[in-house]
């Protein structure tokens, strides 16, 4: 038996598993999107793009697509702005607690998303921490949950650990000698940050933002639980079509279209990143 044959044999169980439980389901999903749905809601086997054209001619589809983009972009921006100083601090600190602080930054990943939503309800809810504070100060209370504001905050927090990791991974390019050189030449701290630190870390900021964006636009738990049924995004729409209205062709077509959009976006980003590094 050649090395190659041994290799294929060793991979065979994993490949079989992925064929059955990954490639096959994705093929079924793509095939499902070409079926049609009758007015009664019944599934009509077909081989057409009717479901795609039906969704594309519905202005609600474009509305939720746009809302999803805006929401994910907003959450990714909040997450990146908050994560940047954390990553910079972790990169520079000589503290003996550095490893502990790095672990704390990604610890939320080990806590279930539902539990973190519960935490946000206690903070943002009508009887939550912020509104309790506002009442104490005699300021009118605010609706901070079961709307877009709440979902934006919750999503920003849920993608932040990944953003910190992505930023930290890219900070290797940041050479402290360059910042010192700028200081020697008389640059003040803020000028130094603006003209040296930020430009050097900009590629990792783009990568971190992009990761946050992709994760936020694919997220389902947070928009569903923190939106209180008033926030409609692509993920909640796909889930409802699959499990509530049982319009499987629509759920499949939305998924395929969303995947195509995301792939195009990631391809664009890698092209831009490659051009930037040349």
């Amino acid at each position, binding site marked *: 038996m050649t090395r*190659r044959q041994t290799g294929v044999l060793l991979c065979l169980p994993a490949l079989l598993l992925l064929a059955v439980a990954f490639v096959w389901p994705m093929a079924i999903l793509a095939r499902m999107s070409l079926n049609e749905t009758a007015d009664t809601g019944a599934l009509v086997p077909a081989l057409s793009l009717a479901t795609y054209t039906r969704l594309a001619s519905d202005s609600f589809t474009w509305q939720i697509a746009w809302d999803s983009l805006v929401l994910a972009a907003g959450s990714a921006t909040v997450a990146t702005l908050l994560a940047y*100083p954390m990553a910079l601090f972790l990169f520079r600190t000589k503290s003996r607690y550095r*490893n502990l602080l790095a672990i704390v930054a*990604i610890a*939320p990943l080990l806590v*279930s998303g539902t539990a973190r939503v519960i*935490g946000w309800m206690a903070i943002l809810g009508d009887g939550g921490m912020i509104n309790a504070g506002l009442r104490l100060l005699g300021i009118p209370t605010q609706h901070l949950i079961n709307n877009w504001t709440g979902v934006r905050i919750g999503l920003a927090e849920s993608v932040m650990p990944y953003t910190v990791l992505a930023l930290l991974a890219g900070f290797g390019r940041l050479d402290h000698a360059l910042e010192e050189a700028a200081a020697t030449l008389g640059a003040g701290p803020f000028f130094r940050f603006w003209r040296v630190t930020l430009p050097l870390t900009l590629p990792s900021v783009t990568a971190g933002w992009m990761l946050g964006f992709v994760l936020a636009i*694919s997220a389902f738990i947070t928009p569903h639980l923190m939106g209180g049924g008033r926030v409609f995004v692509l993920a909640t729409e796909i889930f409802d079509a699959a499990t509530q209205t049982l319009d499987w062709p629509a759920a499949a077509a939305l998924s395929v279209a969303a995947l195509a959009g995301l792939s195009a976006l990631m391809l664009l980003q890698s092209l831009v990143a490659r051009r930037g590094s040349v």
Partner: protein
Amino acid sequence: MKTGGVTALLASFGYAFLLAPLVLVGVMSFSADSYMSFPPSGFSLRWFEALAQNTAMSKAARSSVILAACVTMLALLVGLPAALAVARGQAPSWVAALLSAPLLLPSLVLGLGLLMALQPLALVATWPGLVLAHLVVVLPFVTRIMTTSLAALPADLEAAAATLGASPLRAFWRITLPLALPGVIASATLAFLVSFDEVVISLFLVGPRLTTLSVAMFRYTESRTDPLVAAVAVTLIVLTTLVVVAVDRLVGFSRTVGRV
């Protein structure tokens, strides 16, 4: 020095934002109120008592543990040989790409595809269906950690064993596997935690008679807002921390998974 102070101050805002919900979950789990309100009117263990008496939650927890244990064992059985082939450069490059591909896909889309594929086979809301689905999610983690762990082993040890007359299987069993044990334990732990925590894909595949703890928590939060789920979360956080610390003491996560 001054910029360092500003960075540290801004970093502490980030930490506060990131950790606030976790702290509040902790506070809420000890609330004496029957609904979520801050500050709680008093502290008690009533939600932990309610949790101990909640049969639906404990049944779901039992299912989750069994499911995660099965998934972990099968993922190691399937993932280890594949990781060995990738680490030795014996596998075609597309295999390595395919092995991590499920991670690139949103779980919602993967769950939807699995629902559509498993429904005609009557595998929805069954153990085999859930195990298959979780295996796909867990396998990329297992193969990735095991590939790193196996590639770090000195290659000439197996060759030495072969020179001394050991068959390839015996060399693997007696030399490679014991040396790779820290990686095996680390990937088993991660596999268990990922399966136990998985919720989006499971949502499509559970049924009234078979559900997981994360789905039960999700469904509960959908319909009611009281601190019960906070009590579940605190229990899980304590258990997870114990497991992670124990494994870290045993094999050193930072050594096997790579330093953060």
